[in-house]
C-alpha cells in the first residue's frame, strides 16, 4: 500500500521542494485533527455551561441581561469555525447578555471577543502597548483579522 505521506529521497528542484513543503503542511494539518475535534468539543461544552448559567436575568447580581438563544446559536457557529492549530479560548459572559471568547497570555497580551444576539463580533485586544478593536459580522468562515490577532497574542 502506498501512503500519501511516504517520503522518498528528496529532490532538489524547486518543484520537488514545493511538493515537499505542501506534503509537510498537509501532514501537520491532519496531525492536528483528532486533538482539534476534542478541543472544540470541550469549548462547546463550556459554551453550554456558561449559557445555561446566564439564561435568566440578573445572573451577575447587578441586573445583567440573559443570554439570548440567538447569541448561543451564533457563538456555536463561531466556535465551529475555529481552525486547527490555534489555541482554544476560554468562555465567559457580559452583563449585556453577550457571550465572550478570550485568548489570553498575560494581562498585557489578550484578545476578548463578544458575540451579540445580532451575530456581531465585538473584539478588543491588548498587544503590549498596542490596542486593536472593532466589530465584524459573523460570516461563514473564521475572520482573518481575529485569526491574526490570536496568533499575535499566543505566539509569545
Amino acid at each position, binding site marked *: 500500500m502506498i501512503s500519501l505521506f511516504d517520503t522518498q529521497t528528496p529532490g532538489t528542484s524547486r518543484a520537488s521542494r514545493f511538493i515537499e513543503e505542501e506534503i509537510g503542511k498537509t501532514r501537520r494539518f491532519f496531525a492536528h485533527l483528532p486533538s482539534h475535534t476534542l478541543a472544540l468539543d470541550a469549548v462547546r461544552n463550556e459554551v453550554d455551561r*456558561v449559557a445555561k*448559567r*446566564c439564561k435568566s436575568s*440578573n*445572573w*451577575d*447580581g*447587578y*441586573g445583567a*441581561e440573559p443570554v439570548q438563544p440567538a447569541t448561543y446559536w451564533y457563538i456555536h457557529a463561531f466556535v465551529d469555525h475555529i481552525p486547527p492549530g490555534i489555541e482554544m479560548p*476560554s*468562555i*465567559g*459572559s*457580559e*452583563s*449585556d447578555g*453577550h457571550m*465572550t471568547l*478570550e485568548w*489570553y497570555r498575560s*494581562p*498585557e497580551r*489578550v484578545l*476578548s471577543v*463578544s458575540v*451579540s444576539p445580532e451575530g456581531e463580533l*465585538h*473584539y*478588543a*485586544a*491588548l498587544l503590549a502597548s498596542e*490596542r486593536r*478593536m*472593532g*466589530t465584524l459580522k459573523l460570516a461563514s468562515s473564521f475572520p482573518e483579522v481575529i485569526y491574526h490577532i490570536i496568533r499575535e497574542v499566543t505566539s509569545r
Partner: protein
Amino acid sequence: MNTSPVISNEWLARYILSEDHIRKDGTVKPDPFIPYKHVELSVTRHIGLEENEIWQAGELVASQREDQLIGRADIVAQRAVDNGLTVLPAPLLKNHNHANIIGWPAMKPDQKIIALELVKGAVFVKR
C-alpha cells in the same frame, strides 16, 4: 451615606458571582467590567469599611441572585480616571459606599478596551 468625592488612590470593589470571570491564573477577565446596561458600572468603595463590611456589601449583591459570592475584583480609582472615566459616589440605602463608574463610550469595542485596561491592575480577592 458616603457622599464624599472619590479620591484617586481609593480602592473600589466589583463583586464576582461567576467563576467564568476569573482566569486560571487568578487574574480577572474584562467581562465583569463591561458597564451595560445603564452605561455605568456599580462598585463599592473600600474607604471607611472594615474587611467584613466590604464583604457584606458583596453578599448583598449575591442575594439579588440567591447565588454564591465567588470573590471581588478590586481596582484603584485612578485607573478608571486614567481611562477617561469618572467615579461618582452613589450611596444606596443598603450600601452607603456604593459608587458608579461613568463616562463610558457608547461603542462596545471601546468599552471592551477600557475593561481590559481596568483589569490589568485588578486584584482578585477570593471569598
